């Protein structure tokens, strides 16, 4: 074996080839992006606060820190009670959507897989609509989610991904990556029709459901953060621990099995985790599309194609991306807010074309 020096690469080799893995500078870039998004998310809004003071005020939240930021009591309240929970929720939801997208892409060996294109989000959406319109176990108030909503969303998202998978497999051996996406589109359309029907029957809830559907980080409070956090932790832990298995799965089920893996077991576990994450994201913030496709693909293009790189970086950059998108959504047409789902769709549509062009080879 090569002797390892005290610092830096092993002594005695020019540059020993290393396997794909998360490089420190990329990890640092991801953490930096999250911090920038957090400060920007808290500083920018109807009342603009100096980013330096905001950064100090964020540091003050750490135990044992007590610096003077120069902000007034009212401004500090804006930071800690209004903008911070909203920025944090953006980080959690964006991270979950990007991570789930990356995991689905690995599990289905399909570059176009995404919580939205697979119908997972539509399933969660329908389930949440059922809860909101029929008032199943709900107190009715939107801010402060009824605890039944994430569970219902989870059941809805698992049901939807199962439908998509079965429908996509119906083509047997002739199926291609595009088949799965077409199945997802069909399942989404079917579930959305169910949702429309429900809304039509319960016109009194339309306003409430629509403001949620289009994506809402606006009314986020610490309560929402507390609700999403456990799902976020479970989903991230399960998916990140299996990141190497996703690389093994990329050679196909047969070869993965001959390498000693249990491909179907890994797949079900990862689908469950990604769907749980999607469900939590959807129940907290409504339908926010394209994050699961924009972020993992950008990471793949810039930092490497291994899931050991894609997944942790998607979590970080996905969070930063959504928190920053939220800043755009609430400042671009101020004092009006643009629904955040509209902003991600405006960005995601053109991006999808880029992805399609780059994966044409895979699809045909």
């Amino acid at each position: 074996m090569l002797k390892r020096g005290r610092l830096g690469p092993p002594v005695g080799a020019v540059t020993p080839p290393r396997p794909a893995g998360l490089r420190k500078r990329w990890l640092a870039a991801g953490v930096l992006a999250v911090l920038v998004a957090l400060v920007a998310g808290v500083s920018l809004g109807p009342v603009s606060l100096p980013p330096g003071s905001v950064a100090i005020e964020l540091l003050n939240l750490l135990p044992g820190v007590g610096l003077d930021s120069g902000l007034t009591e009212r401004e500090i309240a804006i930071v800690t009670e209004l903008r911070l929970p909203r920025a944090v929720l953006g980080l959690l939801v964006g991270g979950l959507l990007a991570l789930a997208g990356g995991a689905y892409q690995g599990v289905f060996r399909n570059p176009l897989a995404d919580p939205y294109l697979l119908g997972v989000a539509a399933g969660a959406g329908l389930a949440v609509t059922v809860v909101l319109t029929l008032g199943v176990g709900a107190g009715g108030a939107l801010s402060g989610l009824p605890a039944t909503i994430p569970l219902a969303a989870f059941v809805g998202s698992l049901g939807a991904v199962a439908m998509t998978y079965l429908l996509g497999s119906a083509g047997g051996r002739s199926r291609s990556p595009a088949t799965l996406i077409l199945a997802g589109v069909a399942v989404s359309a079917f579930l959305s029709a169910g949702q429309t029907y429900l809304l039509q029957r319960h016109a009194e809830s339309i306003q409430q459901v629509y403001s949620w559907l289009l994506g809402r980080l606006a009314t986020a409070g610490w309560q929402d953060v507390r609700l999403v956090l456990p799902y976020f932790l479970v989903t991230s832990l399960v998916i990140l621990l299996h990141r190497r298995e996703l690389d093994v799965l990329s050679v196909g089920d047969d070869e993965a099995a001959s390498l000693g893996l249990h491909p179907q077991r890994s797949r079900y576990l990862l689908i469950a985790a990604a769907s749980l994450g999607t469900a939590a994201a959807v129940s907290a913030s409504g339908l926010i599309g394209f994050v699961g496709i924009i972020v993992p693909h950008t990471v793949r293009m810039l930092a490497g194609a291994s899931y050991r790189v894609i997944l942790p970086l998607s979590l970080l950059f996905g969070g930063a991306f959504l928190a920053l998108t939220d800043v755009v959504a609430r400042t671009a047409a101020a004092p009006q807010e643009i629904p955040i789902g509209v902003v991600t769709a405006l960005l995601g549509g053109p991006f999808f074309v880029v992805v399609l062009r780059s994966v044409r080879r895979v699809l045909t």
Partner: protein
Amino acid sequence: MTGSSAAPAVDLRDLRISVDGTSILAGVDLTVATGEWVTVIGPNGAGKSTLLRAVGGLLPAPDAVRLFGTPIGGLRRRDRARVVATVAQSPVVPPGMAVLDYVLLGRTPYIPPLGRESAADLAVVHEVLDRLDLAGFHARELATLSGGERQRVFLARALAQGATLLLLDEPTSALDIGHQQEVLELVDQLRRTHGLTVLATMHDLSIAGEYADRMVLLAAGRVVAVGTPREVLTDRLLAEHYRASVRVVDGEHGPLVVPVRPRRQ
């Protein structure tokens, strides 16, 4: 190398495989001794690939397949993967994956399920890359390699598995004749230096005969002939089971099968 008294590398007893009610293998008996090279031939649909999949543990045959004396059903997946490695007929080429990472996948049965590779795993991978003249290729993207280079990388992954039984499903079907010879010479050399046992399927009968110690002719899911290449590659057997018009001539390393256009009636 294990002595002749040890259990055979592969021992098939009445192996039967059906898919969707259709019988693919209808009772196959076969033994492959440790260190031997056995090549399975047969017309399309004879069940060659199915046979290899069953030996590799990809099809349920818990008692009919024994590897080095152990019924395959008694091996855990990871243990099985340390005993038998497969090079598929057309392995999946994951987009964007570098050669080093691909060959490292061969260490999967040694890496703890949620863990990462050890220095020892990397050392094995580098040794294999060196041995197959792939040392300069570690950072190359698999998808950018030529057919011959790629086949060497597929072999490297199988070798990194550290298994002594190598299953090769049509290892040369995608290669030109020069690369076919290069790959098969390499396999033969590794077999001799590392005591590997090789069970392969092949379409090109002349090349198959030059490298195999023994051949198995499979037709409609049954073994119809087993023996040395000279015993199996005969005009009569090939005419009967391939419905082919061929002439078998003597070559330096075994019989050569030459297709001959049938006479007009």
